[in-house]
């Protein structure tokens, strides 16, 4: 008798402690986006079969949210009966949203359309998993095959089909500089990597931090590295890295790593504690002369009330003149989208000239089409539109265009070690291994 009671007591104790432990575990395991997730689930609970359109993105604030709403307005004018469900998940530059999206897609509950970086992030994650419908027919029906540059079509295509509709283009290879500092020291923005170090040396001698960096997140290291690689080896060799044609163990990658290591002599000491916007701020505040970062910097400067070409200058990253390293946000058509008709209508709005000219001036990017209305864009964006139309286009790996997400995490780990010890040989071995692990390079 007594034994039984003891047994139950023990059982209750085990259960209670297990409950307590799992309760403690809950906050530790969840990333920092509970609000967005809850909101999104609440809305998804609406009865199916109604005339709705659910768009999933991580554009929750600032110009990008305004731009998304501008596209919604156009959609509403055309299809007033459709109720738009704006499912957003904030935080982590989209990494929280991606985790939520993966859960929904795996459980067979896709949104009607979702935001995804154009290129391999879309293709290697979702297309190979057979979760997407091709959208080639939308391009053909709307006569877009000629409205988009071939370089863009190549990046969003696989297996002879197009898989998403790009809504914007950002440029990765931009060198931002402080015009005042350059004038005072009688310097010109560097055109080659050799120039870069001459200029950097001159600035250092003048007591100015030559280059800003804010790599609190490893993606900023990746960003600088993709630009150094492009500048050192040129567009063909760079593009070959992602198809296995350029050897990761070869001399080009070695030179790129050495150049990167050398650059670290010229950056601000506290780079590891800063974010990209703080580094961008250093340039306009005169605390640093140059900064290599994508052209969302221009959008950030605009939000500070600064004028392009007056308050700051820009140039292609040294050695990359005539090349446009692009990344793009796009929307795709998941298989089993609950409101497929509306999703197709949405993609037609998102890909149209009207839609892109509504979205991009607010987002601070340029249209993925070549026929955007120049009047709507500022001086910087106009110059980017010109370059985009004439330059050779290559994909950015940091932002999902050139490589699968799995490969990028492998490169990120190699770069995390590299920025701490600047050991070129070890980094090259690790980068080569990442390519093998990704299944692109052979052993």
């Amino acid at each position: 008798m007594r034994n039984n009671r003891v047994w139950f007591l023990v059982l209750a104790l085990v259960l209670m402690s297990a409950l307590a432990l799992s309760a403690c575990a809950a906050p530790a395991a969840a990333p920092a986006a509970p609000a967005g997730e809850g909101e999104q689930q609440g809305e998804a609970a609406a009865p199916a079969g109604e005339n709705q359109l659910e768009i999933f993105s991580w554009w929750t604030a600032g110009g990008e949210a305004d731009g998304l709403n501008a596209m919604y307005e156009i959609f509403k004018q055309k299809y007033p009966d459709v109720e738009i469900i704006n499912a957003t998940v904030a935080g982590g530059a989209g990494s929280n949203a991606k985790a939520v999206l993966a859960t929904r897609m795996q459980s067979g509950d896709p949104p009607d359309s979702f935001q995804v970086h154009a290129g391999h992030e879309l293709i290697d994650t979702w297309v190979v998993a057979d979760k997407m419908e091709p959208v080639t027919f939308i391009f053909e029906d709307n006569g877009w095959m000629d409205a988009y540059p071939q370089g863009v079509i190549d990046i969003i295509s696989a297996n002879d089909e197009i898989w998403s509709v790009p809504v914007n283009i950002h440029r990765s290879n931009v060198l931002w500089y402080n015009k005042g500092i350059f004038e005072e020291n009688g310097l010109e923005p560097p055109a080659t990597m050799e120039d870069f170090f001459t200029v950097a040396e001159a600035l250092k001698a003048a007591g100015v931090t030559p280059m800003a960096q804010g790599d609190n997140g490893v993606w900023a290291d990746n960003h600088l590295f993709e630009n150094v690689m492009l500048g050192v080896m040129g567009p063909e060799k760079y593009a070959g890295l992602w198809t296995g044609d350029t050897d990761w163990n070869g001399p080009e990658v070695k030179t790129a790593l050495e150049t990167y290591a050398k650059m670290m002599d010229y950056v601000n000491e506290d780079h590891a504690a800063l974010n990209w916007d703080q580094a961008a701020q250093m340039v306009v505040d005169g605390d640093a002369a140059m900064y290599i970062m994508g052209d969302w910097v221009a959008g950030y400067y605009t939000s500070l009330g600064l004028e392009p070409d007056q308050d700051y200058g820009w140039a292609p990253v040294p050695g990359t003149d005539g090349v446009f390293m692009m990344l793009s946000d796009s929307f795709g058509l998941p298989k089993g989208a609950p409101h497929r008709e509306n999703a197709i209508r949405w993609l037609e709005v998102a890909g149209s000239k009207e839609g892109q000219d509504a979205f991009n001036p607010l987002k601070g990017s340029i249209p993925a089409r070549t026929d955007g209305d120049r009047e709507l864009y500022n001086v910087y964006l106009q110059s980017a539109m010109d370059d985009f139309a004439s330059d050779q286009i290559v994909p950015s790996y940091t932002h999902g265009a050139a490589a699968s997400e799995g490969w990028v995490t492998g490169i990120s780990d190699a770069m995390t070690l590299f920025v701490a010890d600047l050991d070129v040989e070890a980094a090259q071995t690790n980068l080569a291994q990442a390519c093998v692990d990704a299944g692109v390079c052979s052993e």
Partner: protein
Amino acid sequence: MSHARKERWTAFLILLPSIILLGIFVYGFIAWTMRVSLSKWDGITPDYTWVGFENFHRLFSKDIGGVAAIRFRIDLWNTFFFTVLFLLACVGVGMLLAILLDQRIRGEGVFRTVYLFPMSLSFVVTGVVWQWIFSPGTASRPRGVNALLGMMGLEQLQWRWFTSTESIGPFHLALIPVIVAAAWQMTGYTMAMYLAGLRGIPEELREAARVDGATETQVYRRIIMPMLRPITLSALIVLGHISLKIFDLIYTMTGKGPGFVTDVPGIFMFETTFQGNHYAQGAAISIVMLLMVALVVVPYLVTSMRGEVER
């Protein structure tokens, strides 16, 4: 007899819902994670092809895993040092504060609340605030603690804090600011536990010891400390399992850091699974974390169960 059987059934029925929920949401998912960790699942589509312990080999062998193994080894060392120092700080400072508060000082309630307050914050808030505090700035424009040290004329103590890549053996000094932040948050908890423990020790015992000629130090060393031992054990278990699985504090405060100086298995697991889509690899990391926590918690459960049975 029938009365006893009825009682047993009632107890069973009352426990049933939690047994079912726990069975599914805790043990079921643990089993499923184990199965995934032994599979080939890489990418969004589940692939349960059996590969044995390959994912674990990748974590522990540098020849097979490359960077993943390097990173995981660093993570385990970081977890070890973080846990040991965090526990020492919480127990040491917590006990000291409790003893001080136990001196029946005026305004005790105020102090108790002040020390306990950080615990009411989320680790995310703590992480963000302490990131501001320990953000180093540059020599010409110091920030946070460095600015404070500069104002006090202690420039030689200025340091790169959590962005430092210095280490003593496998111990990364960048972990120190993280340990300070974590201990700041959880010290109040150990203080409260010790205070309760101290209040539970009958005054007669202390008096008796004093009458026997014990000095005040001896009273604490020989009488009070031994009686607080069960409290120390509980505190170590609760804090130990938090620190072994720590994620949110470090994720918001420093991230993995240059050269993984502040990386922990939780962050590695999150990035591998949800950014790299390496689901099987991420599951393997989770299982290793589970085993680490189990090493701490299971002996505790066994002892406390034995205690119950003896009673």
